[in-house]
């Protein structure tokens, strides 16, 4: 099923608010948007046949908005170039939706000392926050928390597990 991006964003905001801290992917929100949409932004892209259409640009935006994790190099908090588009999409979304709240959860891999890793996770969350604010998001839209190495996404002690654990998760509230 295809959706209009505008519908998606509106519904995403509503649904994400309701879903608490789970990693809600906007696609789920889009599915809900087939029902009555009371935000008044939904129908302007409806085609003659009643099927909602989507431009390639919108599809790309939707794909980016579904990506909610940014990964980092070891002992680094620098945003890698491959995440620029993702963060641009989220930043612009936040700028257009001033009521949206984003929780940035910073994490580190298990190597080294736990409390320093809390520092690394926070630095990564702050780096993501800064980039999103450059797109026009307001500081009041964010909360940050660093779990350090305490909540790995992947168990194990190898390069792949470590890569997946050095991350910031974007959690819409």
């Amino acid at each position, binding site marked *: 099923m295809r959706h209009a991006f505008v519908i998606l964003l509106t519904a995403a905001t509503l649904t994400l608010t309701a879903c608490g*801290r789970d990693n809600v992917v906007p696609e789920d929100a889009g599915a809900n948007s087939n029902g009555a949409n009371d935000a008044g932004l939904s129908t302007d892209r409806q085609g003659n046949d009643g099927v909602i259409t989507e431009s390639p640009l919108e599809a790309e935006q939707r794909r980016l908005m579904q990506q909610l994790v940014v990964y980092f190099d070891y*002992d680094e908090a620098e945003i890698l170039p491959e995440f620029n588009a993702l963060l641009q999409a989220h930043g612009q979304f936040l700028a257009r939706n001033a009521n949206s709240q984003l929780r940035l959860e910073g994490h580190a891999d*298990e*190597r*080294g*000392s*736990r*409390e*320093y890793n*809390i*520092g*690394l996770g*926070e*630095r990564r*969350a*702050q780096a993501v*926050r800064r980039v999103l604010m450059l797109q026009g998001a307001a500081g009041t839209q964010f*909360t*940050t*928390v*660093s*779990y*350090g190495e*305490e*909540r790995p996404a992947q*168990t*194990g*002690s190898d390069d792949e597990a470590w890569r997946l654990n050095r991350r910031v998760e974007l959690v819409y509230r």
Partner: protein
Amino acid sequence: MVRVAESEAVARSRRSRLSLLGLIVAACAWCGTAAEAQLNITITEGQDAAVPIAVVPFGWQGTGAPAFDIAGVVSADLGSSGRFAPMATRDMVSRPTQAAQVNFQQWRTLETDYLVIGTLTQDGPENFTATFQLFDVVRGEALTGFRLQAGRADLRRTAHRISDMIFQELTGIPGVFSTQIAYISLERRTDGSKQYRLIVSDADGENAQRVAESTQPLLSPSWSPDARRIAYVSFEGGVSGVYVQTLRTGTRERVSARAGVNSSPTFSPDGRMLALVLSRDTGNLDIHTLDLSTQVLRQLTTDAAIDTEPTWSTDGRSIYFTSDRAGGPQVYRVGTEPGARAQRVTYDRPYNARPRISPDGKQIAVVVGENNRYQIGIVNVDNGDLQVLTNGRLDESPSFAPNGAQIIYATTQNGRGVLASVSTDGRIKTQIASVAGDVQEPVWGPFPRP
């Protein structure tokens, strides 16, 4: 070290002092909290240099079965230190309980260097007296002997005190068998959820008691200098907070839950302040001190780097901490007076973090990282020299025993978090495995105070 020839007389002359010692042992400090699974200690290195000693099962003067196996606990204590190799009871040819019954030639034949004998006497329904004597088998003479009084609930602690006295007599180092450790245990449940527990146990892992429990991370436990309180970080509610909990009563206070990071609490040597790490509204981690009675907060560092893992110098006048202001994490020291500038302490490796000061203030235990291996090292405070003590891949959280002779730390074995200890000369290594779950972040408590 004073060695005495006739221990029975010495014991009598010291009786009044030791009766007091025996009575120090307080009642259960955490009654009502649930007991936890114990830890098991295994010597992994240094066993070949251990001194042979025989701890003969104590005589029993009372009704029914012996109230407690004092010798069993003493034997296990001495063995767990790695410095002694206790003889198995089944290998003992005789089991003397009084000095007159000791046949030194027989014990020499069994190639034991030292011999401990004793008796547990029941004085009343709940009151006991333990006496023991320590002999040098080679010389055929008594070294020391004591008499301790104890209530029924204190018999295990009495055994640890006997271990402490024997250890000090034979090594010149105060024993730490009467001390406690705190650590975090982590249980991964089959439904994917986690249960974090802050545990306090005796140094041998026995008598484990739950201090706090959460499905969200608990970390960074730190003892108050009087061993009565523990500060720690809890992520309950999805945000970090620093808590101080009184062990005896279980009451706790949230002393910091500011925006951003609340991390790494450690008590000042006088117990009145906490050093802690806050990011507040800047998002930048800096070292702060918090006066626990006045709530006055002071910021000690302002660098844009990660400044974290503070620990107080023994005189309380400076704080050692980790900072990556020069690139990778290194240890720095900053005075607690206003306007003090931080000075770098470690240089030797690309990664030196999580400093902890030895009780004499002359050494710093650190996590040393190089070539993707993280191990425990000690740094000489005066000249910065580093000695790496462990050989794991993911060793962390070093903590000195209060006698300075041993460091407890966290490591991994077969993917599980386990605790381990290493002597500060690096020769003796022990592993302390939990019966269930992962264990991490051990902190050795102070000597018990009268």
